[in-house]
């Protein structure tokens, strides 16, 4: 199967066309038109990208196997967990958020529940104190502030 490259090439072709079209819509900069405007370089890029995208669709490489659907779902969950951590640093606090994300990741990578929890707690507490006291970069305490 050589479907990966064809699909990706198509996506990139769409991107290149949209990008090039976007470049043509730039307002004319203050001071009038120059030989190289803000759109010149993007238009060159859009052409280069279109050519390589078309080549990729015409002569695709053999596919690398994608994981089965459950694994892809798991990867999405992992990505979401890092996003959740990013969101939680300020309102909830660094230590609980980091404990959660490290424990979750290490559990998903195959550690048992207790060990991953220990890894999470220990690493987030150490990093918190290292950053706040030794390196003097303030990480938010969040809920633990009380």
């Amino acid at each position: 199967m050589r479907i990966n490259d064809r699909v990706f090439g198509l996506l990139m072709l769409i991107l290149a066309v949209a990008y090039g079209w976007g470049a043509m819509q730039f307002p004319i900069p203050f001071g009038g038109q120059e030989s190289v405007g803000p759109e010149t370089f993007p238009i060159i890029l859009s052409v280069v990208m279109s050519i390589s995208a078309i080549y990729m669709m015409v002569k695709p490489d053999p596919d690398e196997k994608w994981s089965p659907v459950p694994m892809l779902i798991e990867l999405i969950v992992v990505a979401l967990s890092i996003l959740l951590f990013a969101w939680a640093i300020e309102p909830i606090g660094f230590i609980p958020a980091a404990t959660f994300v490290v424990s979750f990741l290490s559990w998903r990578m195959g550690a048992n529940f207790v060990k991953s929890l220990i890894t999470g707690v220990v690493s987030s507490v150490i990093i918190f104190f290292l950053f706040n006291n030794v390196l003097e970069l303030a990480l938010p305490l969040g809920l633990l502030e009380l």
Partner: protein
Amino acid sequence: METMSLLMNGFAVALTPESIMFAVIGAILGTLIGALPGLGPANGVAILIPLAFSLGLSPTSSLILLTSVYAGAMYGGRISSILLNIPGDEPAMMTCLDGYPMALKGKAAEALAISAIASFIGSFIATIGLVILAPILSKFALKFGPSEYFALFVLAFATLGGVTGKNQVKTVMAAAIGLMISTVGIDISTGVQRYTFNMLELFEGVDFIIAIVGLFAISELFFFLERHAGDGLKQVAINKLKLTARDILNVLPTSIRGGILGFIAGVLPGAGASLGSFISYSLEKKISDKGEFGKGDPRGVAAPESGNNGAASGALVPMLTLGVPGSGTTAVLLAMLISLNISPGPMLFTQNPDLVWGVIAAMFVGNFVLLLLNIPMVGIFVKLLSVPPKYLMPVVTLIASVGIYSVSHSPTDLYFMVAFGVLGYILRKVDIPLVPVILGLLLGPEMEKSLRHALVLSDGDWSVLFNSGLSIGLWTVAILGLVLPLIVGPIVRSKMRKSKDSVQDD
């Protein structure tokens, strides 16, 4: 000797207690990073940039810290090649050929020690080469006008795949992706908003450090999860070191040859460390009449290691003098320079001599530190290697995210980091290399600027890009860089594979 006195000034900078401290910390961290499976040198340096940045270190200190990390990672990479038979990155592949058999024969400690010595010699020779060549090249580079620079940037992308590159079109595409991302934000010279979609976060463009950490570190995490590689691999036990002076003398000529070849490969565009270690290994195999190459010959360990480390230092020459990196890790070092507001290139040597020569001197110091660290302390690094990735990777991810977060204290940066991680995962799945993406992001603004300057000077005449002998030469090399790999690449790669297979068949 102007160079000598500048170098002495450099040593005055590099031998202050503060600099030595950073060199030692960098060397230790670098060896760890290099030794950990799945964390290449580029990755490690990328994770540390935001930290060095938010700690407010001076440019010289951060550069010393990160070049030591770079050098240390090159040393560390060999540990997993020898003990696990898993190369940390492509150049380390040749070290597996004789390193692992040596370890199987119960000579793991000797293999590690010899490779440390060879690495030292390789780096040392290449650093001397850097001292000699860099000032000459930087003087020459002063002749470059904007159109030559534009051609040089094209050359950098064209040769990035290297002669061992697989699919040139994918390299071009990767570069285009990076360059496209670099155009996001307010255009510096006209003030026009480009592709910002009126999002405030995008006005200043995409921060390349976030992109680098996301593309490398986060996508690596996904790959670890996918491969169920959390438990790590079984490694060969390490024995007590019995190394005589004679053993060292035995590999000395090999290491010197390897270092010189590696340096040349590192400086040349498109050759890189893989070719450096490959050439020096094959040369050694040819020269030696009676050797047991492939079955654990010490010279087979020394040659690729010195070649590989020589190339790593050699790659700094184009990065420092022209501002055009030749490899992933030097691209990341370039990212650090740009984020410290230092623009590399010929002017660097005249404007910041303290910094350049301090860093070069620090490389000598760092090398000694690494040699001293690596022989007695290799056991500690080996122990660390046995910590399963299922505990290490999450912690590394946490450190990477904290580094990103501490730069601007904004969760949005972390959202971008995850997005780049997903992008990196998809790109790797369709076999699009990540390094040109990074390089495009880094060089995009400069490349556009030189195009602009060239065309403003010529009043919009595009032929200005090809009207000097120098720029025509650069364009020729660039085109060769794109075309040659189609011919040479399959040959070299099949040879590399053949020498690896023949070892495994035995």
